[in-house]
C-alpha cells in the first residue's frame, strides 16, 4: 500500500479514536455551547414561547442601579436593556464577581424560573469602568 494512504489511515484512526472518546466524555452536566441573547430578544422569544422551559441560555444586559440586594453569596437584582428589564436571582455558585456593580454589563448564564425570575448560575460582568477605555466620553 502507498505510504501516503497508510499515513492517512493512521492519522484518521488516531483522530477518530480520540474524537470517539472525547465525545463520550461530554457528560459533566455542563453545556459546551449555549445561545446568547440580548435581554429584549430573550424576553420576546420567551413570551412567544420560542424558548423551551428550563433551557439554559446566556442573557446580556446591564445591572439596573438601585435594584441590587446582596445576601451572602447570593444576589437579587434586575437587568435592563432597551427599556426592558427582568428580575434575576443569582445562586452565588461562583461568588459575586468584583466587577458586579450598578450599571455594569452582565452576561448571565441560567434559565427562566417559574415565577418569572431568571435563575442565574454564573455571572460574568464587565464594569462600565473607564479603565479599559481610552476614548473621551
Amino acid at each position, binding site marked *: 500500500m502507498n505510504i501516503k494512504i497508510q499515513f492517512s489511515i493512521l492519522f484518521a484512526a488516531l483522530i477518530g479514536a*480520540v*474524537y470517539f472518546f472525547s465525545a463520550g466524555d461530554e457528560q459533566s452536566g*455542563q*453545556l*459546551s455551547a449555549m445561545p446568547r441573547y440580548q435581554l429584549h430578544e430573550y424576553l420576546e422569544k420567551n413570551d412567544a414561547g420560542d424558548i423551551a422551559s428550563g433551557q439554559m441560555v446566556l442573557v446580556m444586559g446591564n445591572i439596573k442601579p438601585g435594584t441590587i440586594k446582596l445576601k*451572602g453569596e447570593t444576589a437579587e437584582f434586575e437587568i435592563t436593556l432597551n427599556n426592558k428589564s427582568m428580575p434575576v436571582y443569582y445562586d452565588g455558585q461562583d461568588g459575586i464577581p468584583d*466587577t458586579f456593580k450598578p450599571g455594569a454589563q452582565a452576561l448571565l448564564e441560567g434559565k427562566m424560573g417559574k415565577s418569572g425570575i431568571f435563575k442565574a448560575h454564573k455571572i*460574568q460582568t464587565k464594569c462600565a469602568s473607564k479603565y479599559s477605555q481610552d*476614548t473621551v466620553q
Partner: protein
Amino acid sequence: MLATLGVLAIIASFAVSTINIVLSAAAIRRRDDRLVQTVRYGLYSNFFFLAAALICLLGALYRTDLQVFYVVNHSSATTDPFYKLTSLWAGSSGSYLFWNFLNAAFTALYVFMNRHRPKGEMPYSFLVLAIIAAFFSFIGAFFHDAQPFRTLSEPMAIGRGLNPLLLHWAMIIHPPILYVGYVSFSIPFAIAMGGLLAGRLDADWLKTIRRWSLFSWFFLGTGICLGMKWAYEELGWGGYWAWDPVENASFMPWLFCTAFIHSIIVQERRGMLKLWNVVLMHLTYHFTLLGTWITRSGILDGPHSFANAEFGIPFIIFIIISAGVYLAIIVDRRHVLVSEAKLESLTSKETGFLLNNLVLLLIALMIFAAVMTEPVTKWINSYDPSVEVIIRKQAWYNSYVVPFGLLVFFLMGLGPLLSWRRTTLKGFYNSILWPLSAGVAGVFAAPFLYAYFKPGLSYGQLLGDNTGGCITVGIVVLVFTGTLQELYRGYRARRTGFPQESPWRSGVLFIVRNKRRYVGYIVHIGLAIMFLGFSGRAVEENTKLTFFMQKPTLSMQARSGKDISGLVFADGNVVPEKTGDAGRENNARFAVVYGSETGVGDKQYWRGYTLEARRLVLEPEFPQRNLNAGIRTPNVEARIHLRGDFILHKGDETLGVLTSWRTFHPQVDPGSAAMQGSQPSSHPAIHNLWLEDYYVQLGSILDLNKDKNPDLERIMRNINYAPNEEAWRAAVDQLPESVEITARVWLNPLIKLVWIGAVFLGLSTLLIIIPAGEKKNFTI
C-alpha cells in the same frame, strides 16, 4: 509638550517606514547595494523615532501630566513610581505603542546582526519588515484609540490610577514578555518570506529562522505561563486557565510555532516538509496578528479584553490582505519548496513529527473555530435573526480540545523513541516496550495517587471518574521513561565512542555535543511535569465555608487593638492613634475588628483541614506619599481593605495564617476629583503544602440582623471621613452587630508541578537558545 513630541515621533515613524517600503522595493528592482544601506538606516531610524515616542509617554506618566488623556486614565500622582511606568501597558493605546516599539526594536536588532551579510540578500526581508512597521505606525498615527498622546484642553484635577488588578509582580513582567513573544515572530516570518522571494533557502537560512522562532516561542510560552500565575494568585477564582479568548489568542500561535520548531528539524535532517514549514510560519505570524486583533478589536464580549477599538476594521483588513498575498507568494514559489525525500515508513521519526504537527494544527484550528463561533454567529444573526448567537463554553474545550492535547502529548512521548527513515519492527518494538508498558502501568497506578486527595473512594471510582487524569499520568510516565531511556542510550553511545573519557565528562558532553536533541528531550520533561500538574485538576475540589463573627466589645478591643497599627480604643469608643509623627497623625485612621469574645475564631472542618476565621479587619490604607509628606489623605485617595485572617489547622497542628482580602479602590471623576464609586479587587491567600495548595478567598459578608450584605466600604469611609462627632457616631452605629463571612476555598492538588514544570521548560529552552555548545560559529 512631551505629548506633541510623541505624536510627531509616531508620524515620523510612519513616514520613514513608508520611505523604507519604497526604498527596499527599489533596492530589489535595481539590485542597488547603496539603497540597501539606506534602508538599513531607515529601519534603525524607525526604531529611534518609536523609542522617542515611548520615552515621551513614559515621561508624561512619570511626571503625571494630567493634560494627557492616557495618563489621566491609567495613572495618578499617588501611584507608586514603578507602577507609573508599568501603566505603559495598562491601556489599549499605550500597549499598542509599546507593541509597535518592540517590533521596531527587533527589526533593528535583526538589521544590526546581519550588518556583515552581503547586501544583496537582505532587501526582501527588509521589505517585509518595513511593510509591517508602516502598517503599525499608520494605525498609531491615524486612529485615535491607538494614540496615547491625545491631550485635553485643560489638565484634569486627578488621575484615575492604575487598574488595581494589574498591581501584581507577574502582571509587571507578563505583558512585556508576552509582547516580545508575539512581536518577535515578525522576524522569522520576514526571514522566511525574504528567503522565499530571494530564492535563497539554504542551510544558513534554515538555521537563522530556527533560532529566531525558538526565541519567540520561548518568550510567548513564558508570557503565557506568567499570565497563568497572575490569574491564579490575583483573580481569586482558584484556577489558572479558563479558555478565555485572550488566553486562546496567545495559545494559538504558540501551538503553530510548536509545530514549526519540530517540523523544521525534519527539513534540516531530511530535506522534507519545506512547503509545510513555510505555511506553518505563515500561520504562526498571522495568528499573532489575529490574536492582537481578537484582544483589541472588541469583537468578543469577554470580560478581560480591551474595549472596542476603532482600528479593528483596518487591522483585520490588513491581516486578510497580508495572509492572502503571502499565501499567493508561497504558492507561486512552491517549486523551490519541493521535498528532497519521501516518507519511507510509518514507524519513522518523520511520521511521528508529521502526526504531531497535524494534531497541533488541528487543536489550534479547533480553538480558532470555537473562539470565532460567537462573532461569526453574531454577524450572521445581524442579517438573519433566526440564527442564534452561540458561545462556546469552557466545557467544550475540556471535552474536545483537552483529549487532543493528550494525543499530542502521547505522540511527544513516542517521537524520541523512533529512528529516522525507518525503524525495523524489532527495533521499534524494543524502543517502545519499556516506556509503553510503564505508561500503561502508570494509568492503572494513577488512582493510588488520587486516593491521597480523595480518601474514601474505591479504586474503581477513582479510575472511572478521573479517566482523563489517569491517562495523563500514564503518558507522563511514558514520557519520563522514554526520555530517560533515550538519554541513557545517548550516554552509552558516547561511552562506547570515547571509552577513555571519565563517566562524568561523558555524561555532560553527550548532552552538550548534541544539545538540541538531548536538551530538547529535557524540555519534554518540563512539559511532562506541567501535565502532571494539570492532571491534578481531575481531583480539584472547592467549597464555601461560612463563619460567625461579632462586633468588637470592649474586652475584645483591648485584646485586638494592639494588632493593628494606628488603632487605640478608649472607653468603648474607637479613636484615632496619636504617634507624634505628623504624617501618621494627620493620617490617623479608624479600623474595626470583628472576631469572637473568646479570641478563638469560628472553625470549619473540610477535607481533613480545619479553617479558623480569627478576625475580620476593616481598615483604610493611605498612600505612602501622603504619609511621608504629612498631608491628610482625601477620601478619593484612600483604599478600604476588608481583610480576613484565617488560621489553617490539620489535626492539632497549626499550619499557618492565611490572610485574604478584598480592597476597594476609589474611582474618581478626573475633572471634579469627586469620587464616582469604587472598584474592588480580590486577593486570595494560598497555603503551600507539598502536594496541594489550600487556597482561600474572602467572599461576602452578611449582616445577620438585617439579613443582607452591608456596604462595609461606605460605612468605613463614613467613619473615617465623618465631618463631626454626630456623623461619626451615626456611621459607627451602622456597623453590623454580628456577621457571617464566607470563605471560598479550593484544594488544588499537584498545582505546584505546573509552576515547577514551567520553570523547567523555560530554563531548558534557554539552554537551547544560548549560543554555546554544539558548533560555535553561528549567525543570526
